């Protein structure tokens, strides 16, 4: 009986941890997406000064998010996003708005892929 209680407790902790990590992933992922969307608007409005500042902020935000995601996700899946996010501030600083737009688009796709891969959908499970 003691073993069963321990096992059920661990199971409950695991289920709780799964729900927590999933909601954490969802929340942080959404925050990243919102920031990318905001940056895309800045690109469209040609607000260069603000764009440089916000690109740095996005990179910083990604590093924080990556630190969290690394705990429960393969880190090699996150590396391409880190590289793309690292390119943004320099591109914005040198006025290469088109490249910034392209990188943002790439970032959005990569983040979306990671998020959909981690969500328990039928196609991902099987």
């Amino acid at each position: 009986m003691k073993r069963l209680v321990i096992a059920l407790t661990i199971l409950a902790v695991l289920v709780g941890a799964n729900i927590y990590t999933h909601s954490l992933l969802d929340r942080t992922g959404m925050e990243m997406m919102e920031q990318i969307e905001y940056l895309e608007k800045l690109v469209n409005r040609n607000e260069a000064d603000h764009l440089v500042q916000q690109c740095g902020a996005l990179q910083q935000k990604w590093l924080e998010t990556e630190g969290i995601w690394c705990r429960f996700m393969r880190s090699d899946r996150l590396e391409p996003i880190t590289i793309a996010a690292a390119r943004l501030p320099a591109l914005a600083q040198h006025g290469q708005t088109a490249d910034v737009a392209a990188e943002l688009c790439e970032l959005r796709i990569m983040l979306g892929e990671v998020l959909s891969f981690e969500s328990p959908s039928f196609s991902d499970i099987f």
Partner: protein
Amino acid sequence: MLILSIRTLVLYLVIVSGLRLMGKRQLGELQPSELVVTILISNLATLPIEETSVPLLGGVGPILLLVCFEVVVSWISLKSRRARKIISGQPVTVIQDGKIMEDRLRDLRFSLDDLMEELRQNSVFDIRDVEYAVVETNGKLSVHQRYGARPLTPDMIGMPKPGDDCPPPVVVISDGELLAQSLLSCGLKRSWVEKQLRRHNLTLEEVFLMICDRNASYFLLPKEKTGKKAVKKG
């Protein structure tokens, strides 16, 4: 390298704790579901050790999940006969009243060579001596020999039980350490042990092994450095 070492150590601790949680059955004869869990655990453990890109939780989480699931399934099969039948299967009688059940052997994909091998492992070399043989759920063969071929037991010849028959002796001193639980099972006290040691001019630290039974008969083996001989009493 340091990361790998720490990861290996953590996984070792998780697996040992997991196997302890699954209980002693896991370390002995494996049921089909237990075998599956054991194989899966060994595979899951190697992933985070081999690849540092895989988070440690990616190995620990599934291992804990499997272990807990196995404990829950074992509990269910303990409570329900039907569940036990589904999870572990049923024993199959392959020799009944001395007759080999060929169809059952075929169902089990158990060849005659396998059967003979299992019989030999049960110290039965002549198949004619077997009355019943059952393939258990863990794949082992249990054999019931015909009356004439069974080993002689005291009951068969009506031998009376000896008066001093008691449970087997237990270790009460191991490498200079007195094992209180063993002493208790013999119904003896620490003062009795100390008295016996004094009689042989020994201290507790000088004893390598002492075994004792409920009749207070004992065997005392001093450590080599004392230069004293072993003592047997009773």
